[in-house]
């Protein structure tokens, strides 16, 4: 059972790293949104620091929305997904492996790139560990929850806007606790509470979302 998990994970990671351009696109999207923002608000450091939690988390949310649309699409188009459904291995496990591979190739990049970007916004360096921790705990949950929405809209040709309506309301807790932890860290307040809650959401996501993704894939392939 575990061997299929590793096999799917390896395959998806291999595919992701064969298209390094796409990995760079994730990073560029993140950098561009953050870099364009001061052009709209003015470069006053006070404003930038105040809005930085919202800015970082909203750009992560938007990046997740854009990249999640491709999560199952290639497998759906070339028939791999049908083979997953037909195989005796548990579909939920395959889905979990796919989400993990997706996160390693996109969410992790945001986590690693975030210190540079928040320093660009004038956030104190002491807040950086908490910011990285909040992204590390929050972005996998975004992938897990978003994958349910992607799986439900799999058969639709252009699902982008619909997908945002489906998953953004479900992203509210992650946004609140993620940006909350970041805001607390910037103000020098303890952020552990928000981080624990993010971790709790992640555990809930890991333990329940794969089954919902599997059910959604089955509905879409009916």
């Amino acid at each position, binding site marked *: 059972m575990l061997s299929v998990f590793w096999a799917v994970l390896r395959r998806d990671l291999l595919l992701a790293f064969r298209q390094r351009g796409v990995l760079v696109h994730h990073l560029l999207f993140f950098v561009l949104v953050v870099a364009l923002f001061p052009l709209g608000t003015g470069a006053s450091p006070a404003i930038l620091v105040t809005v930085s939690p919202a800015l970082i988390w909203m750009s992560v949310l938007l990046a997740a929305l854009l990249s999640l649309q491709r999560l199952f699409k290639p497998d759906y188009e070339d028939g791999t997904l049908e083979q997953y459904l037909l195989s005796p291995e548990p579909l939920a496990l395959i889905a979990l492996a796919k989400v993990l591979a997706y996160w390693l190739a996109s969410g992790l990049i945001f986590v690693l790139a975030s210190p540079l970007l928040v320093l660009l916004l004038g956030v104190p360096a002491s807040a950086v560990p908490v910011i990285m921790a909040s992204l590390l705990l929050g972005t996998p949950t975004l992938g897990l929850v978003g994958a349910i929405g992607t799986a439900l809209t799999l058969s*639709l040709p252009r699902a982008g806007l619909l997908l945002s309506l489906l998953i953004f309301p479900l992203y509210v807790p992650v946004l609140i606790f993620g940006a909350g932890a970041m805001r607390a860290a910037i103000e020098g307040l303890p952020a552990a509470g928000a981080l624990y809650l993010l971790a709790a959401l992640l555990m809930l996501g890991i333990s329940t979302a794969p089954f919902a993704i599997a059910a959604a894939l089955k509905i879409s392939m009916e």
Partner: protein
Amino acid sequence: MLWLHRFGSLPYFYRVSRPIALALAVPGVLLAVYGVYGGLVNAPVDYQQGDAFRILYIHVPSAWLSLFGYTSMAIAGAVALVWRLKLAEIFVVAAAPVGASFTFLALVTGSIWGKPMWGTWWVWDARLTSELILLFLYLGVIALHNAIESPRSAARACALLSVVGVINVPIIHFSVEWWNTLHQGPTVTRFGRPAMEMAMLWPLLCAALGFTLMFGWLTLWNMRAQLLWRERRSRWVKKVFSDA
């Protein structure tokens, strides 16, 4: 239990749903009218809020139904996913616009109430915000249903989405409350809750029950329409129309 199995038969459901819907509609409308009239005209004036509190007789039942509607959709959704009951699927799809309307009504009346009480149309109060997100959850179900062509998979997708949504509703509510306490709240987010005077409470209970019956009536009526559309090629539907 045999009578329950009969509801699996769609023509049977179509036949009996009409009298059931009417049996809900008549007392529902009467109770709602009685409750709203009692609230707007007969109930005593509130000593703090004056006459402005009277919008509560529409606001509270709507807010209650927004939650009741989504919960009932999720229960029906779970039934639809586990037992593949067609009627439960249709219920999810049919209840969504009704529930969304009540949610919208709750938001609008809340906003109108907020203007004289808080001095502004909108406050990022925890309850208001989670109600707004609940409206988005409803709209997501409706949009998903509209987007998927095959009615069967559309309804099943909506069933799954409502189950996922209902798990999230308490989490969203909790997180929004947590978020709101981080900020300094507006000075009057919630009024002190004195135990309500019976003369005020009684019309409210009537209105809430009446609105709930009306929810059942409207949902059943919508289910009948959905059913006719989904089964439009079957013989029994053609017979319904040729008899009419």
